[in-house]
């Protein structure tokens, strides 16, 4: 059996769910935008990951 009647509380839940969806999509957009901005301004594209990376040191050696 499906419940068809909508209560005012369903509207509030909908507003919560839609609001959270917008926030999450917005957050993904901000992180993506930050990534583009950081790379455009020349931030390092790799980080230390337990292996020797000479190009990450100041002198490059």
């Amino acid at each position, binding site marked *: 059996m499906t419940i068809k009647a909508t209560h005012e*509380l369903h*509207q*509030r*839940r909908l*507003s*919560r769910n*839609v*609001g*959270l969806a917008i926030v999450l999509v917005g957050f993904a957009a*901000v992180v993506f*935008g*930050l990534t*583009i*901005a*950081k790379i*455009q*301004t020349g931030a390092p594209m790799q980080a230390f990951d337990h292996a020797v990376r000479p190009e990450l040191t100041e002198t490059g050696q």
Partner: protein
Amino acid sequence: MTDATITDRDHDAGFGDYFALLKPRVMSLVVFTALVGLLVAPVGVHPMVGFAAILFIAVGAGASGALNMWWDADIDAVMRRTSKRPVPSGRVTGEEALAIGLALSGFSIVMLALATNIAAAGLLAFTIFFYAVVYTMWLKRWTPQNIVIGGAAGAFPPMIGWVAATGSVSVEAVLMFALILMWTPPHFWALALFMRSDYDDAGVPMLTVTHGRPATRRHILGYTVLLAPVSLGLAFTPIGGPVYLVVALVLNAWFLKGAVAIWRRDEGMAEADKYRAEKDFFRFSLYYLFLHFGALLIDHTLLMTGVI
């Protein structure tokens, strides 16, 4: 299912109730002052990085607002001004407010560190700690000077904005901090004078309750006098300029005039015209801060476009 859970469901919160936990009106001031701090800094930032920095500072400020509403729900329920907030009105539970406050605090600090630098993130963390723990949990219910020290929390945003751009604190950032710090006591005490019964009922040791209203009037004048040199001092730093100097002179003269008027009145006169001078002073104090930071922005724009 018990009756209690049914009642709880009836109070299901909408998205707006959670947003209200973040104190959007306070946030607007935080966004504006942090933005000015970031823009007037001598180091330019990528617009996207600047936008992200302001966003995460605002989220951090909102998180401390949620923590404040969790801790202060008992006081908020008694005061007319705050009784409709999400927690005292029952739309959001105290535990939810705490969870949202803590989660958003950690989130905003980490994201600000990733977007800008560790120093700015550290300042944001300290600001949240200062507002939620030092002010809300400790000073607010303990000393009538709560406003003076609590004002520091509201004074940090332009400094965080500045540090997000430059990576370090300097005299300009300290003076922007001091401007808001010294502005907060007269601003709030004017409010306390005309929202008279609220703080009495809640048992918060406002200066009006502990030291009386004439003492509060003297304090407003004292802090307004001390505020003027801070405001004018900022004009002679590298971020000040002719527009700021003129604006600061006019605003401080006006603010001092209002403070003297409040100082000269007694309760009989104030009640006779329904606290007109106090209400005018409070309203003007909002313009005072917005126009100071707006003037800094105008001078910066003039400098960048080569007009001055």
